[in-house]
């Protein structure tokens, strides 16, 4: 029987994505250029992780 995952295990990655996304939403407001680029990286994370899951996590 597969082990029950802890709350921490279930939410570690989602929480990381959420915090990173929020940082990205704010950085683009703070400034231009580098700040904008930071927002592209951080808000690109949920998209990148989805593509990764759809390709590598199919069972």
């Amino acid at each position: 029987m597969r082990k029950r995952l802890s709350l921490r295990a279930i939410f570690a990655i989602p929480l990381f994505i959420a915090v990173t996304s929020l940082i990205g939403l704010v950085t683009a407001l703070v400034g231009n250029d580098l700040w904008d680029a930071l927002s592209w990286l951080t808000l690109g994370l949920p998209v990148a992780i989805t593509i990764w899951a759809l390709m590598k996590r199919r069972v």
Partner: protein
Amino acid sequence: MKPATIRLWSAIHKWTSLIPTLFLLMLCITGLPLIFHDEIDDALNPDEWQAANPGGPLLDLDTILDRALANRPGEVPLYMSFDIDRPVINVTTGPTPDAPGTQMHFASFDATSGDLVPPKSGGAFMEVILQLHTDMFLGLPGMLFLGAMGALMIVAIISGVVLYTPFMRKLGFGTVRASRKPRIKWLDYHNLLGIVTVAWLTVVGLTGVINTLEAPIIDTWKYNELADLTAGYEEGTVPTPAEMASLDAAVRDAQDAAPGMQLQFVAFPGGDFSTSQHFAVFFHGDTPLTEQIITPALIDARTGALAGIRPMPWYAKALSLSRPLHFGDYGGLPLKILWFVLDVMTIIVLGSGIYLWLTRRKSVPAEVKELREIEGKTA
């Protein structure tokens, strides 16, 4: 999580999703072209206009105002606004200071020569999309209704995160059981796309709700915060253009009182955005964070004396910051593209949610139990 707890949260998730779902789908779909509003407008209506004296000195505001009034004899000035990316000043005039929108006349002038600038044509299609997205052509009630749908969505997001727990007890993050029956496959898509977009959708949803409160927020600001600036001026007649002091001098005085601020908009006496006896001059900041923050100054339109300058109260600032955070237009084209992709992901979450509801057969706790048993056997 106890079956009773799961049942409660799944009831919350079901109803807070089902009630707004068609409206949310409409918002997501009309939102897709709106993200690229500027690009689409520019492509449909390329702006080939050039200033008469590019880089030359700009005429003062009084000269532009005189040109605008000469162009519309017998009318009074209502608003003056300033294009950001070209030396163009727009003047709105009307037959009376309180003329309704249908009687207003909008004209643009070259700030280097005072010549009329031909109006940008078209944009009608995007206007329809924007209206649909803002209030479904129903005015304030439509706007507030969409705000309520957005508030339900926030509850749906929270309950969705709670329900994510029992479904993911035995599945690693991001597992997509694509080889299983469609219902399980789509449950996995729903959970994956839903959980990765949580933060973004919460911010876009909350800021959208705040945007729907625009009218009450602006009214509160006008009646509470600006009231003391305008006290004693409620009565009295609106000055005619001939009685008005120099607008250019008034704006310069206000600019001295608000260093580091950019001129955005002037409202003339007697209209919705001013008193019967003041020029209201609106400034915005010059950094990405402060350019949304408006600071109004009131100037006695007869004497030209600065009556006062007031920073926005916190709730009006919240409204201002809600606009870029909702539209996604504040971080260049890559941010807009990400906004588009995240919007499409939200559409898939909504669509798969409807599918999961249509194909439901048993209670959510029973389904959780069955899925866990399957995972237990196959793992």
